[in-house]
């Protein structure tokens, strides 16, 4: 528990409309460019995934994910209250998007 505790305001909700995979993402910042509302800024460290600066402004249009030149770098992460339900037609079991 060595992590320093800062006096921070509440984190914007939702804070993570997308999740980056730093293993695949090479920080090309294409998503920064295609974003309609400038949710992201480039990471100060070159080659790293962008910083989600304005997650509260995301309207989930999907351009960043759809246009990513390295698939798998970036995935949608729907806020909990927006997760979908469906039902298996054969068994009747109700399922949920619980990725």
């Amino acid at each position: 528990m060595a992590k320093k505790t800062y006096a921070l305001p509440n984190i914007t909700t939702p804070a993570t409309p997308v999740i980056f995979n730093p293993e695949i993402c090479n920080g090309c910042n294409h998503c920064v460019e295609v974003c309609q509302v400038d949710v992201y800024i480039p990471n100060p460290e070159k080659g790293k995934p962008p910083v989600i600066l304005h997650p509260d402004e995301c309207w989930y249009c999907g351009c960043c994910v759809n246009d990513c030149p390295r698939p798998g770098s970036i995935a949608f992460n729907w806020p909990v209250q927006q997760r979908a339900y469906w039902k298996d037609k054969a068994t009747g079991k109700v399922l949920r998007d619980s990725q």
Partner: protein
Amino acid sequence: MTRWHDFIEKDGRPPAWPYPIHYDKEQEIDTDVLIIGGGIAGCWAAISAARKGVRVTLVEKGDTVRSGAGGPGCDHWCNAPANPLSNVDPDEWAQHMTEPPYSNGIGTQIQCREDWDTLLEMEQMGGKIRDTKDEYVGAKGRDEKTKLMISPRYTKVHSYIPGMQKPVTLKSNPEGKLNNVVIRVWGSTFKPVLKRECKRLGVKIFDRVMVTSLLTEKGVQGARVIGATGFNNRTGEFMVFKSKAAVLATAGDWSLFLMNTELAGYNFFRSRTTTGDGAAMAWRAGAALTVMERNGVLMLGTGFKHTWYGGAGDASYENVPIVDANGKRLPWPTQGWEDAGAMRPTPENMEKIIKGIQSGEYALPFYGDFPGMPEVERRATWKLMLGEESTTRNITESYEKGGFDPAKHLLQNYSFIEGNSPAQWRTAGGGGPVVDWDLKSTLDGLYVAGEQTFSAGDHSYAAATGRYAGRKAADYSQQVGKAEISKDQVTLEKARIYAPVRRTDGIDWKELHAGIARAMQYFCSEYKTEHLLKMGLDALKEIEEVFVPRLYVLDPHKLMRGIEDLSLLAHGQAIINASLARKASSRMLNFLRIDYPKVDPPDWHKFVTVQMENNKVKVGEMPLDYWGDMKANYEARNKDYAGVYQGK
């Protein structure tokens, strides 16, 4: 480390602003035709103007490659009666589409005559409009010869409005044949292609620049438009654009009545950037606006609801049967072949459904029965329609990743269980500048295209009217000389824009937006009276005088959001003034006045206009068919129309 607070925890400080700050710099750009807004309408306007050989500059708040409502994609090319598979006459179709009062006959006539040519030009540029890979052989509506795919949408029923959803028969439509006016397209390919073509034609593109005001001759309200001001929303640099003609191709205003400070980008059907900037700047420049009093009902995407293209009907899309929790089919239309394209249940069916829920006949929740569909239709709906529609591709893909398989799973529908939006949560109703047969506003030098022309915001309408306004603006720019920009006008605008940067304390853009939205909810929503509307004007005035001078921002991005609030404020003022001017209720305008309860009385069957003259509001009116004979006037104004582009 991709979240802001990660940096605090790791480095003890936030990341530095990644772009240079240039609040003190100014750039001047000289052009023939200035396009304001780089969405679908703006890109098409830029391309058609550039093809006329004039210098074109395009200014866009986001990045033109994917910006605008049609940026992510588009699955339907609506109202294309001139396509080779159509069974109706384009002029008769245009006439029919203009039958509901307060629609725009000029824009609709242009769309019906020219949007098929526009789509062919899209194909020339590299957009995909046909099933060339034979992925959907056997799907209903697919034509083997042309490989075009006709959509079931609006095949007979065209209205969303309860009580008006009757099948329509046109004289030109042979009996027993569908109209075939809506085409399925692969619209996710469109926007990057449009930007590429703009660049190829030498259009100067300024991305991440918000236009804030129109410049007029001698700085006079109501005079010819000779340019615009703007600023870069990453660097803060000020921009002055000098032009001979300008095309206003901005979006409507979708967030005036609602602000959720947590999900600020997700309050409504469209992105946060649709704040009515265009109508607001036209209003301030003295252009006449119309249909401003119309209200939209916000049933989609409030951020408090489930999301699926906004959340109203979820699985109730093309050809997907809606069933109850026990698998019983509901009398809910599917916008499909079976129900001739109807989207909402008729009032009678809605009553049946509600009574059925209460009596236990229909068990909640409801589901979209994807597995019950024929395989090729299921694929056409899931992969083509939802896969290519503006914001839904990422939804289908993430559902699949979460394990959803449309062949096996019923997709839950959220109707009823998520409740309805309160009536005070509305949208502005798509009013905008009055236009003539050149799509020119009442101001010389100012043309208008797309959603801003008090009309529907559909993709093909934006494309066709953008293409049309671009060529008319180019023609005009070749006839007029340059004009001198008023230095005073620029200085005043600069002071207005940068005031929030200079403050170190006060209120931020979210609070200001929420305050404006609340005033609109209280005073200009379901319950309208002269007294309430006047209180609304006073409330906005108070916000303007007391709270706007407290607005402060931290960086150029938040400056953009703050200036958007000022657009909302001006938009709200125009709406309340128009609401005061209409002293009657109207069903088509979703406009009910308690003090004038008579609905659509014949003497109020007219457009109401509002405009600013010497900073005072002037009210006017126009007949509902002010455009005259649509076919004759279109033809008279377009004798030189050359059809599909033949140049390089």
